[in-house]
């Protein structure tokens, strides 16, 4: 009998999660502990959803748990389908996949997605890029269990040689989404019934196993798979409308982003985001402290966020060609969160200039509700031989379309804010003039 103690932690979503030996070894590392001090839903816990106090750490555990679960399920399924090469590959990469599940968000900035854009602007790196540095240099060189850190990094960055493995961590059906939808809904108090096991049993790996680099994570071709995926996508879409894009929290997040960007040339801020060692000390509370100590407008924005006094929502319009003349590049940019953050920041600056205001007295925000990415089912088109897209089989999936809205928020200190019509005209001029 083994004398090794089994480490199990309770979890509100998974029930119980067993920690693998390598995690027991690294769980006290500052890079790992830091995730306990970053709220999974950022400022939403302070503004609209007081129950959303869960952290990146609990999400990381949940994704790790699902990585093991989906891997076992796919191994079983591949064995049943006699796809021995894929089965062997899943077995070989199991530990890396589980480690990638846990480490996929290790480089998230404070307040999670709220600082994504500011972080990229300052450090030039996304959290996925920064993860490489942290996994290689801030964790022990040997994680044990023969885990290949470079493979873990490839999985986290979605660059593994075999797409079906990357897609388990990052893709249209990834386990990251599965965990955050269930976990976030639980903590914000949104109730819905979703049978995760039933959904996971619909997963499949599509493609000829002789070409592993072309195999993809997809779905079985069954009514059950389609029905469950529709439900999953309806929930996914609704979480954006009801939680992730809810107005006051969103405004607070934009205020925080601007509080950072106002100091993007200040060494106190640059060091915190560029120097990995200092970045690993930067959690939610620490970021608020840094910004408060800098003083000026940044400190004022932070004080207002803490006091729950967010900017006023002044203008809200669908961002389509009927209202605004947008270049094709602009329209393309809206599809990527990073680019639309860049565009809205550019518009914010020009808008304040045109109305003789200092930087970020008005804040422009562009919110895009995305359509689901391409999900394929295990059925090939007789003419092209390509796997059929779920969108072509499901009216519900086809009805979930991408839409963008443009919003203007104003500092409550502005006594006489710009009128709707003038905002509209100014935005039209700015958007038409934007060159990408």
């Amino acid at each position: 009998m083994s004398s090794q103690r089994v480490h199990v932690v309770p979890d509100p979503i998974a029930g119980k999660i067993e920690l693998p030996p390598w995690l027991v070894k690294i769980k006290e590392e500052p890079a790992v502990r830091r995730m306990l001090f970053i709220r999974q839903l950022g400022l939403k816990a302070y503004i609209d959803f007081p129950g959303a106090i869960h952290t990146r750490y609990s999400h990381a555990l949940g994704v790790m748990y699902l990585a093991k679960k989906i891997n076992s399920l796919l191994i079983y399924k591949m064995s049943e389908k006699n796809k021995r090469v894929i089965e062997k590959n899943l077995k070989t990469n199991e530990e890396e996949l589980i480690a990638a599940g846990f480490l996929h968000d290790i480089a998230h900035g404070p307040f999670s997605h709220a600082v994504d854009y500011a972080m990229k602007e300052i450090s030039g790196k996304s959290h996925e890029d920064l993860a490489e540095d942290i996994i290689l240099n801030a964790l022990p060189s040997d994680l044990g269990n023969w885990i290949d850190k470079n493979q873990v990094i490839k999985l986290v960055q979605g660059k593994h040689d075999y797409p079906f493995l990357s897609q388990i961590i990052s893709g249209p059906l990834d386990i990251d989404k599965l965990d955050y939808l269930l976990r976030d809904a639980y903590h914000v108090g949104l109730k819905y019934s979703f049978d995760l096991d039933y959904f996971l049993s619909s997963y499949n790996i599509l493609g000829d196993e002789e070409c592993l680099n072309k195999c993809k994570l997809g779905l079985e071709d069954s009514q059950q798979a389609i029905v469950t995926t529709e439900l999953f996508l309806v929930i996914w879409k609704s979480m954006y409308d009801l939680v992730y894009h809810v107005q006051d929290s969103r405004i607070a997040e934009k205020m925080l982003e601007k509080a950072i960007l106002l100091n993007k040339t200040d060494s106190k801020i640059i060091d915190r985001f560029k120097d990995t060692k200092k970045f690993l000390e930067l959690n939610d509370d620490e970021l608020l402290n840094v910004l408060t100590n800098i003083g000026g407008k940044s400190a004022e924005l932070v004080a207002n966020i803490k006091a729950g006094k967010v900017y006023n929502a002044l203008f809200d319009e669908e961002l389509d060609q009927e209202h605004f003349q947008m270049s094709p590049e602009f329209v393309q940019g809206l599809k990527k969160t990073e680019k639309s953050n860049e565009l809205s920041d550019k518009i914010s600056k020009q808008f304040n200039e045109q109305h003789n205001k200092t930087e970020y007295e008005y804040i422009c925000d562009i919110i895009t509700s995305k359509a689901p990415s391409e999900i394929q089912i295990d059925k090939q088109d007789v003419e092209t031989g390509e796997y059929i897209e779920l969108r072509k089989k499901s009216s519900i999936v086809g009805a979930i379309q991408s839409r963008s809205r443009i919003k203007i928020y104003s500092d409550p200190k502005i006594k006489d804010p710009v009128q709707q019509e003038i905002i509209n005209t100014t935005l039209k001029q700015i958007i038409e003039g934007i060159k990408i």
Partner: protein
Amino acid sequence: MTANSDIALLIAVFGAHKNNKITGRTRIQKEICVLKYKSKIPFTFEYKSYFYGPYSEELSETINTLVGVKLLKETVTATGYNSYRYDYFLTEKGKELFQKLNHDANGLINKLQKQIKTLDQLDTPDLVSYAKAVSGLDSIC
């Protein structure tokens, strides 16, 4: 070609009702049962015998989820001591989805409206009996 599965069909059933509303959980359960077994609307909800005839837990869960994601709204009316009726109707978001689904293209709405008009003429006990008859599922006690 795209197909309508459970969520799309449920939205269509609500869309085909007057005021986009169904009164009472029992009526929802039995109407969908009749539409599945008699009218051959391809719902995948599994029904079993329960206290008041055919009942689908999956349907009940899906309705709860649609309420959770704000496609349906649930209202509760007291009908006596410790007795309540739960009504459901499409929200604005639900109506928007109903429009997008464009069910008219395959005549689904016309078909549903005809069936629903017939079912509306039945009071709830008669609807329960009808659902039992078409599904072959009786009450368990």
